[in-house]
C-alpha cells in the first residue's frame, strides 16, 4: 500500500465530492436564503443546483477519467465503475426532474439533498472493492432511502413504508455485517481480491475444500441475505410492495432504479470477485454447492413469485413492485453465469430497466396527482385525457414486457443468450432460461392489463383532459425516446459497456 496524500485522494473522489457539495449547497440555499420563498421556487432552485452538480460530476468523469486502486481496494476506479457512476448520475438527474412540482412535501431542499447524498453513497459503493467501504456506503445509501420513503409526512402510508423499509433494512444490514465479519475472520482480509486469494489458497489443498467449510457457507449466505434485500429477490422481497406503494412516487422510482443498478453491480462484485472459487454450480444434473445454486434458487423463486403475484394486483405501484421482483430474478441470471458477456448484458439490462421503471413511476406520479390514486381503474381512459403520457406509458410497459424493438427486448435477449453461452457445450442453465422466458410470457398479461385500462376502457364520467406540466412531460418523453433508441440501436450503450469491461479486466 502506497502512501496517499489527501490532495490526491480528493482528486480521485472529486465527482463524489462535487455531488456532496451540491447537496450541501442545496441545503444551505434552501435553509438560509429562501425560507420565505414559495415552495415551487425553492424546489426549482434546489433542482437547478442538484442537476448542475450531477452534470458537473458527469462532465468531470468524461473529461478527466481517473483510474486507481488504492487503500487496499477501498477506492477502485475503473472505466466500468465510472460508466456505472455516470449511469447513476443520469438516473439521479431524471429522478430530480420527475419530482419537480410534486406536492407531497414543502421541503424540497431536504428532499433533493437526500437524493444527492444517496447518489454520492451509490457512487462510493460502485467505486470500491473493500467490505468495509461497501458496508459503509450501503448504510449511507439505505439510511437516505429510508427517509426518502417516509418523506411524505402527511401520509400515514408513507410513514409505514419508511418504517417497514427501515426495519427490514436494519435486519438485513445486521446479516450483511455479520456475514462480512465472518468473511474477514475466515480470510483475514477485507479486500475482495484478498478474500478470493484466500479461497483459492485453500482450494489447492483437497483436504480443505472451502466450499464445505460451514463458516464460509454461513458467511456467503448472510451476504446473500444482506444484498438480496437490496435487489429485492425472493425470499428477501417482502418490503418491496409496501415500500413501492407507500413511498412518494419519485422516491419509489429512485429506489427502483438507481439503487437497483448500484445494488446489482455490487452484488456482482462481491460474488464474482470476492467469492471466486466458491461458485459451485447450479446447472441441471451438475449441482455443486456454492453461491451459484443459492442465487439460482433465488432467481427462480423471484421470477415465479414476482410474475404470478403481479397478475392479481389492482394497484399499479404494487404491480410495478412485483414486476421489479420478477426483473430482479432475470438479472440474477446475469450474475450467476458470471462471464464478461453476462456482466455486459446484466448492466445493459439494469440500466435500461432503471430508465423504464423510472419513467413508469413518473407517469404514475402524474396520474396520482390528477386521479387521486394508483388503482388500475384510475388509469381508465387515460389515452383520451393525456395522450402523450399514455403513449410514454405504452412504451414503458411494452419495454418491461420485452417487446421488440424496445430496450427491454434486447436486454432480455442479450441476457438470456449470455446465460446460455456461459456454459459452452452444455445447456446446464437452460432450465433457468426456459423458466425466464415462460415467465416473461406470463408477465405480458399484467402489463397489458395496464395498457388495456389506458387505451380500451372509457374514462370516468366528467373526467376532463389532464394538464401535464411541460417539463415533466418532456422528461418522460425523453426517457421513452431513449428506451426506444436503446432498443433500436443497443450498440450505443452495449459497445461502451463491453469496452469498459474489457479494459477493467473482469
Amino acid at each position: 500500500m502506497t502512501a496517499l496524500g489527501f490532495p490526491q485522494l480528493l482528486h480521485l473522489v472529486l465527482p463524489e465530492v462535487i455531488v456532496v457539495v451540491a447537496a450541501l449547497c442545496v441545503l444551505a440555499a434552501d435553509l438560509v436564503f429562501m425560507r420565505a420563498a414559495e415552495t415551487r421556487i425553492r424546489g426549482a432552485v434546489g433542482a437547478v443546483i442538484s442537476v448542475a452538480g450531477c452534470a458537473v460530476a458527469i462532465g468531470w468523469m468524461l473529461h478527466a477519467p481517473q483510474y486507481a486502486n488504492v487503500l487496499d481496494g477501498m477506492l477502485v476506479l475503473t472505466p466500468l465503475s465510472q460508466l456505472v457512476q455516470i449511469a447513476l448520475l443520469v438516473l439521479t438527474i431524471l429522478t430530480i426532474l420527475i419530482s419537480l412540482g410534486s406536492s407531497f412535501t414543502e421541503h424540497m431542499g431536504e428532499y433533493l439533498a437526500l437524493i444527492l447524498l444517496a447518489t454520492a453513497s451509490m457512487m462510493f459503493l460502485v467505486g470500491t472493492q473493500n467490505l468495509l467501504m461497501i458496508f459503509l456506503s450501503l448504510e449511507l445509501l439505505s439510511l437516505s432511502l429510508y427517509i426518502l420513503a417516509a418523506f411524505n409526512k402527511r401520509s400515514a402510508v408513507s410513514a409505514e413504508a419508511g418504517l417497514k423499509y427501515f426495519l427490514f433494512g436494519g435486519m438485513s444490514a445486521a446479516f450483511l455485517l455479520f456475514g462480512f465479519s465472518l468473511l474477514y475472520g475466515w480470510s483475514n482480509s477485507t479486500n475482495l481480491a484478498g478474500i478470493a486469494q484466500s479461497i483459492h489458497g485453500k482450494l489447492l489443498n483437497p483436504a480443505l475444500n472451502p466450499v464445505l467449510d460451514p463458516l464460509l457457507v454461513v458467511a456467503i449466505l448472510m451476504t446473500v441475505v444482506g444484498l438480496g434485500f437490496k435487489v429485492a429477490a425472493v425470499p428477501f422481497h417482502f418490503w418491496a410492495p409496501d415500500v413501492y406503494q407507500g413511498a412518494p412516487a419519485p422516491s419509489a422510482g429512485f429506489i427502483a432504479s438507481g439503487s437497483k443498478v448500484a445494488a446489482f453491480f455490487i452484488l456482482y462484485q462481491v460474488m464474482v470477485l470476492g467469492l471466486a472459487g466458491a461458485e459451485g454450480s447450479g446447472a441441471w444434473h451438475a449441482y455443486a454447492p456454492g453461491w451459484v445454486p443459492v442465487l439460482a434458487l433465488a432467481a427462480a423463486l423471484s421470477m415465479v413469485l414476482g410474475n404470478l403475484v403481479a397478475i392479481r394486483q389492482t394497484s399499479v405501484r404494487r404491480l410495478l413492485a412485483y414486476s421489479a421482483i420478477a426483473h430482479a430474478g432475470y438479472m440474477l441470471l446475469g450474475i450467476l453465469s458470471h462471464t464478461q458477456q453476462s456482466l455486459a448484458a446484466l448492466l445493459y439490462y439494469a440500466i435500461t430497466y432503471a430508465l423504464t421503471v423510472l419513467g413508469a413511476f413518473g407517469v404514475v406520479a402524474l396520474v396520482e396527482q390528477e386521479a387521486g390514486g394508483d388503482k388500475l381503474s384510475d388509469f381508465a381512459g387515460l389515452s383520451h385525457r393525456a395522450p402523450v403520457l399514455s403513449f410514454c406509458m405504452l412504451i414503458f410497459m411494452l419495454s418491461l414486457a420485452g417487446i421488440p424493438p424496445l430496450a427491454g427486448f434486447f436486454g432480455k435477449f442479450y441476457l438470456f443468450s449470455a446465460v446460455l453461452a456461459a456454459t459452452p457445450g452444455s445447456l446446464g442453465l437452460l432450465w433457468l432460461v426456459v423458466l425466464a422466458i415462460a415467465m416473461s410470457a406470463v408477465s405480458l398479461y399484467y402489463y397489458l392489463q395496464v395498457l388495456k385500462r389506458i387505451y380500451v376502457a372509457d374514462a370516468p364520467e366528467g373526467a376532463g383532459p389532464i394538464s401535464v406540466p411541460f417539463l415533466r412531460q418532456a422528461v418522460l418523453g425523453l426517457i421513452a425516446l431513449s428506451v426506444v433508441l436503446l432498443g433500436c440501436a443497443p450498440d450505443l450503450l452495449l459497445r461502451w459497456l463491453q469496452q469498459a469491461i474489457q479494459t477493467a479486466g473482469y
Partner: protein
Amino acid sequence: MTWIVRNLWLIPAIPALAAGLSALASRRRRAFAASLAIGSMGISFLLSLCAFAQALRSSGQGEATRQVFNFPWLQYGNEWLKLGWMLDPLTAVMLVMVTFVGLLIFIYSTGYMAHDQNFTRFFCFLSLFAAAMLGVVIANSLLLLFMCWELVGLTSYLLIGFWYQRPSAAAAAKKAFITTRIGDLAFLIGIVWLYSQAGTLLFYDHGAGCMEQTALAAMVAHITSVGMAASTGIALLIFAGAVGKSGQVPLHVWLPDAMEGPTPVSALIHAATMVAAGVFLVARVYPLMAAHGGMHAAIAPTTALQAVTWIGSITAVFAALIAVAQNDIKRILAYSTVSQLGYMMMGLGVGGVAVGMFHLITHAFFKSLLFLGAGSVIHGCHEEQDIRRMGGLRKFMPVTFATYAVGMLALSGFPLFFSGFWSKDAILHAAQDWSISRTPFYLGAFGALLTAFYMTRQVFYVFFGEARLEGNAGHGAAAGHSEHGAARVPHESPAAMTMPLVLLASCAVLLGLIGTPAWPWFNSFLNGQPAALDFAGFLERGTLPVMLSSTIIVFLGLGLGWWFYGRRPIASADAPDALEQLQPGVFRVLQNKFYVDELYGATVIRWNGWLASLSDWMDRWIFNGAVQAVSYLVIGLSWMARSVDVFVVNPGFDGGCKTVTVGGKILARLQNGRTQAYLRMVGLAFAVLIVFLIWSGRR
C-alpha cells in the same frame, strides 16, 4: 467518396422526418402538413440532383461508376449484418424521377385534396411513401430494399384505403395488400435462399457482394436437387416479388382496384413509382437474372430472363385487351399501366437494364401526366368517373385537354416527337432480335396497336362530342340527380393542378430526346459508357424497319379508334359501345376482365375460405382447449401464490404494522412482538439454505 454519397440517406430521411412531424400535427394544421411535405420533397429533389450530378461526373469510370457506402447494423454470433446504400446511374435516374414526379404530384394534391378533412393525414402518408420509395431506390442491401419495399406496400395500403369509409376502398386496400403479399412471400424466400448461398445481402461490397462475380459464380455452379441452378431459383423467386408489386399476370388483379384511392395516389404510387419498383428490382438484380454458367452467355438468355420476357409480353397484351372495354377513366389507365409494366419487363428480358428502365422513366412521366389529367377531369366533373357520362370537355378544360392529349400521344407512341415512341421502339427493336422466339415481338406490336386504340377511344369519349354529364342539358340518365343540374357544369381546375400537368407534359415530350437511336445517351449512361451523337444509329440493321412498322401500327390504332368513336359524335351516355355492337360476346369477356377475378374467387379464395373455417374449427376446439387448460393452470398457480402472500405473509406483516400505526401510544410494546413475522421468514429461508448447502456438500 464524396459528400453526397456518404449522405445519400438524407434523401429518404427528410421525407420520413416530414411524415413523422405531420403525424404529430393536429388535423387542423393543413398548411403546415402540406408545406412540410412539399418542402421536404423539394430538398430531396435538390439532393437527388446533386447525386445525379455526381453520378454524371463519375460515369464511365469503370468500377468508380458505382459508389457504395456500407455500415454494420447488428451483430449476431460472430457475423455482422450490414446495410448500405449506393449511388450508380440507375439509382441516380430513379432518384431524380421519383423526387421530381413526387414533388409535382404533392403540389397537385394541395389542389385536388383541398376539400378533404383528412388533408394532414394524406400528406403524412404521401411523405412516408416517398421516404420508403427513395429507400428502395438507394438500398445497397436486399434486406434494406425489402424493408423499404414492405413500407411502400404499407403506405400503398393506407393510401388506397384513404377513404376507408367507402367499403369498396377498404376492400381494394385489402386486396392490394394481400395480393402483393403473395409475391412478397416468394421474394422473402428468395432473399433467405440468397443469403444462405452468398452469405451476404449486400449487392456490391468491393467484390464480396451477392451481385458480384464470386458469389454469382458460386450460385450458378450450385445445382439444386430439382436440377436447376441456385441462381435461377433465387432469380425466379425474386421476380415473383416483382410480379406482385408491378401487377404482372397473374397477380395483376389488385392494381385496377387500387384506383379507389385518391387520384394523386394513383398517379404517384400506382402509375409512376411504386408499381415500377418491381421493374426496378429486376433491373437491380439483373446480374443475378443474367448469371450464366457456360460460355454461351451472349447467345441464349437465362431461364430467369426468359420468364421475365414471357410474363411481361403476355401481360402487355392481356391488360391492353381488357383496357379496350372499360368505362371508368381511371380503370382504363390502370390497365394501361399494367400493360406498360409488361412492356418494361419485356424490355428488361430481351434488351437488358437500359431498355426496360428507359421505358420506366418515360412512362413515369406520361402516365402520371395522364392520371393527373384524369384527376383534373374527375375534379372538374364533380367526381364523375364514367367516360360515357363525360364528353365535350375540350371546351370546358382547355389546359387539361392539351396536356392530356400530349400524354395520350406519348403513351400511344406517336412517332418522333413523343418520348413513348422512342422507349417503346427500343423494346420492340430488342424483342425483334431476341434469340429464343419472335412471339414476344408480335405480342408487343399487337399491344402497341391496342394501346393506340384504347387511348383514342378514351379521348374521344372524354373530350370530344357533346357534354353528357349527368344533369347537364337534360342528357342525364339518372333523374334523381337532375336537381343538381345547374351546379354540374364542368370547370377547369385550379393552377396548383394545371401547373404540374404542363410541366409533366413538357417532360413527356422532351425525355424522348435522350434515348433515340441517334443519341442513346440514357442507354450509355446506365451502362457507364460515353454517348455520342451519331445519326448513323438510324441506319443500323433493323432500326428503321422497326421504327416504320411501329409508326404504321400506331397510326392504325389511332385510325381504328377514330373510325369507331370519332367519326360520329357519341350522342348519349346510354348508347352501347361501338365495339359492343360489333362483337357483343368478345366485348363482354373483355369488359369482365377475362373473368380473372371470378376465377380467383371460385378457386383460391374459396379454398382459402375452407382452410380458414377448418383452422377456425381447430382453433376453437383443439388449440383453444389446450390454451384454456394452461391458462387455468397458471391462474390456479397465481391464485395459490397470492393466497400465500395474502394469508401467510401479509397477515403477519400487515397485522403487525397496522397495530403499529393504529396503536400509537402502545406502539413500542407491541412492535417488539409482531413485526418479526416476515423477518422470521427471512431467518427461516436462511436456515433452510444453510442446512441445504451444508448437507448437499457433505454428500
